[in-house]
């Protein structure tokens, strides 16, 4: 029997090898996947035991802090309420985490590398999050939210919401990101309120500047102008015949109000936002050149912003299946911010602000960022805004030429009613027609100031109003934000 007993022991050892193998699987090999399982509350509960860092605006307003809730657990509060609900978001155990609370979570929760956490364990110190300062300016944010709300309430037929984004062209710092309607992040802890916010048709939880894309209308002509001049195929003096009825992709195109302009140069065409001129430019440049310049501006990809991927949407021509397309679309109409079945141009307000910023910064697009500075609980600075170039969109010369064109718009053209205390304005209006019969428009404004040494680039838009124009509705919102930033 002894031989069998030895074999039996061999079998028992084999069984135990399975135990070791499976323990390794859960404890080490698949541990990360298990931590990501949705019903695994451990990481969330663990994080509630960490004192999350504070979030402060660039001008020193406290946006988020953690308070003791008993039992060694902390809970988040947002003293500014709805002001920064978008884009800062929230972080609660029951509803999860979105916005900057999510994208900067590693800093805020004190996530460290393995080595540092072993040192911590040995020295017995508890994990604490870093305090972060955002690039966002609370004063200007307040102005932006108020301006959007009053534009929505005072403009005839205004519905839905609106967005404002303001960037520092030379650093990529996001100074303002406003989305209306918003929500109070303190309220989402309540399950009923959260459900109501989620299902609300006005979509208050949506961070419109990064999550929503719209026809950008004539603001797109800035991109087309850059492509035309920078490719060397056009100069500001290039003339084209620009009457209404010019056939684009075989279909006649009309100018705003059915106006005929005769033969005009590029300056006149941008000042008066002449559709037929710019659509012909688009056709002459061709799809490849337009796509190349759009890509340089950051279209066709999520903004390179420190923000959650699932809260950003790429801009560009979308076909009727909802896919981004790089060919086969009506390039003439895309060049004026429109399109068709094969490719409808849709842009996020954040993207259009980047367009203005790239022109303002001598043609160099800086990576946009929210993070001004982070410091650990002992006050040591552990991160700071380090301006980083995303792409060289155009030459210095092109940038100067386009700036001049945009100054023309602000001084003599569709934006001539607008001015800012920052200095000389360079801008472009847009009025996307979303329902011609009912006169429903989507007003836009992008621009920067002062033109000779740009400090702020901005994009402002409202989702819908009746018979309104970009220069009348979106422009003033942008001016108020610029003025507010000029003061700070």
């Amino acid at each position, binding site marked *: *029997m*002894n*031989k*069998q*007993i*030895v*074999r*039996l*022991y061999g079998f*028992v*050892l084999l*069984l*135990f090898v*399975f*135990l*070791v193998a*499976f*323990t*390794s*699987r*859960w*404890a*080490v090999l*698949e*541990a*990360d996947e*298990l*931590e990501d*399982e949705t*019903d*695994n*509350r*451990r990481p969330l*509960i*663990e994080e*509630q*035991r960490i004192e999350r860092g504070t979030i402060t605006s660039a001008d020193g307003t406290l946006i988020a802090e953690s308070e003791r*809730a*008993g*039992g*060694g*657990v902390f*809970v988040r509060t947002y003293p500014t309420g709805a002001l920064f609900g978008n884009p800062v978001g929230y972080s609660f*155990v029951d509803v999860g985490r979105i916005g900057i609370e999510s994208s900067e979570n590693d800093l805020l929760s004190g996530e460290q590398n393995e080595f540092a956490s072993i040192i911590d*364990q040995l020295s017995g110190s508890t994990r604490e999050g870093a305090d972060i300062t955002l690039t966002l300016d609370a004063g200007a944010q307040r102005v932006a939210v108020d301006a959007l709300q009053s534009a929505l309430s005072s403009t005839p037929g205004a519905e839905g919401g609106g967005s404002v984004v303001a960037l520092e062209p030379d650093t990529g710092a996001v100074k303002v990101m406003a989305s209306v309607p918003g929500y109070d992040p303190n309220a989402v802890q309540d399950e009923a309120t959260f459900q109501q916010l989620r299902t609300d048709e006005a979509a208050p939880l949506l961070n419109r500047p990064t999550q929503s894309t719209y026809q950008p209308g004539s603001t797109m002509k800035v991109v087309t102008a850059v492509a035309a001049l920078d490719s060397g195929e056009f100069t500001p003096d290039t003339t084209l015949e620009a009457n209404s009825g010019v056939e684009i992709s075989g279909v006649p195109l009309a100018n705003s109000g059915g106006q005929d302009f005769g033969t005009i140069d590029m300056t006149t065409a941008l000042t008066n936002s002449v559709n037929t001129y710019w659509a012909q430019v688009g056709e002459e440049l061709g799809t490849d050149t337009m796509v190349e310049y759009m890509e340089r501006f950051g279209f066709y990809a999520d903004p390179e912003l420190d923000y959650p991927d699932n809260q950003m949407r790429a801009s560009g021509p979308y076909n009727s299946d909802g896919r981004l397309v790089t060919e086969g679309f009506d390039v003439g109409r895309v060049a004026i911010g429109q399109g068709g079945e094969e490719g409808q141009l849709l842009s996020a307000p954040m993207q259009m602000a980047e367009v203005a910023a790239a022109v303002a910064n001598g043609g160099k697009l800086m990576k946009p960022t929210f993070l001004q500075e982070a410091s650990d609980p002992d006050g040591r600075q552990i991160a700071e805004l380090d301006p980083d170039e995303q792409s060289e969109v155009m030459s210095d010369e092109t940038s100067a030429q386009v700036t001049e064109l945009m100054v023309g718009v602000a001084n003599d053209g569709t934006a001539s009613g607008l001015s800012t205390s920052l200095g000389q304005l360079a801008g472009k209006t847009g009025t996307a027609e979303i329902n011609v019969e009912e006169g429903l428009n989507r007003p836009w404004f992008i621009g920067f100031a002062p033109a000779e040494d740009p400090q702020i680039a901005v994009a402002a838009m409202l989702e819908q109003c009746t018979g309104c124009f970009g220069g009348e509705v979106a422009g003033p919102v942008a001016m108020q934000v610029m003025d507010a930033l000029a003061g700070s």
Partner: protein
Amino acid sequence: MSARNRELFALIPVALLVTAGFAAVFAEGSDVITDASLIYGGYFLAICVATHIFLRVALPHADAYLFPLCAALAAIGLVVLYRIDETLAVEQATVFLLGLGAFAATIVFLRDYHALERYRYLIAVGSLALLMAPRLPGIGSQVNGAYLAVDFGPLSFQPAEIAKIGVVIFLASYLNEKRELFSVAARRIAGLTIPPLKHFGPLLVVWGAAMVMLVFIRDLGSSLMFFGAFLALLYVATNRLSYVLAGLAMFLVGATFFASSGPGHVQDRIDIWTNTFDENPCDLTERQLDAGQDCGVGQIRQSLYTQAEGGLFGEGLGQSLLKLPGPFFPDSCEEGFPFCGSILPEPHTDFIFAVIVAELGLFGACGLIALYALIGLRGFKTAVMARDGFSKLLATGLTAIFCLQAFVIIGGVTKVIPLTGVTMPFVSYGGSSIVANMILLALLLLVSDNARRPTGEGAAL
């Protein structure tokens, strides 16, 4: 060095383990646990020394390592229980005293354990009766869908723990007597060895008992354990792998049949095992889901999540998340932690291994599994050295069922097999388990002492 001196030396690491473990837990949680409970660590060591002295007198030739290995398991169990809740450790230390009593009684009254052979049918019937007891109205109680315990007032007792020893004694004796018949009088038909039908009878009874356990007790774990030990003994006694395969096939067929047609519990366990991360693995109705039922899938998930915290070296004693903090702790938790308010249900019984993985890591867990493997080694060595068939089979059976029990519960917690509620020998909190395993250890030491005792011919082993 004599066997008993080696045993004494082997107890030194156990003493260090308990001391270091208690000190670590105490240092970690000194704000919530009292220093008075520290003495229970010393109390446990005193029991170990007392057992050792008793063995010196009663079984001087018995295996030197079995007892220290079991004591090491118990020490780990005690430290982890102390970490979970100090009162659990205090109770467990007290239970060890009871276990020591059973241990001593077994050794004193069963010095000639061959006497057990004479009562084998009585023992078999008694064991089956014990197994059925949890279904008796009045004293039986249902836990998680399985009938595992008998309640006597405040005391709860799991008869399967004791019954396993009785079943092994019966099988060892029966197979020892009949093994000649099984291996010699067999006919070969179409390459298969078929034993005479009449000897199949009692074995069919064993198979039937395993099936009855599945259906009436709904305890897949014990059923697996018992039947596994039976197959192990059948193999060792007859050296016929074909019997084992036939037996295994019969078990699987029976289990599949009863699992799919019988009451839902066993089928649920299997569904949970195969579809652990499905949203609704055991097809509960909308209403059941709303009522918060999950047919137990939540606990195995929590077990895996707990282990995921461990990594290679673990979070350290007392460092992993177990008791829900502050606002997460349920308002209605009358029994108190760890009976409710623990993120991992049953951290002190079924899922103690997951806690060990989380806090001592993969290495700690492997050390624990190695202890079981070493006990297996000493147990099977005892069987090899034993001088007569009954002793060999008895030692084999006891060791096999002990190792299988460890496999069934650790395998359940780590999802190697469907999760079933058996205790982790010497580690889990629970009186019946400790007492039964102390008796099992006593029997193994008796066989060992008998095997190693110098004989009249002077053949010292």
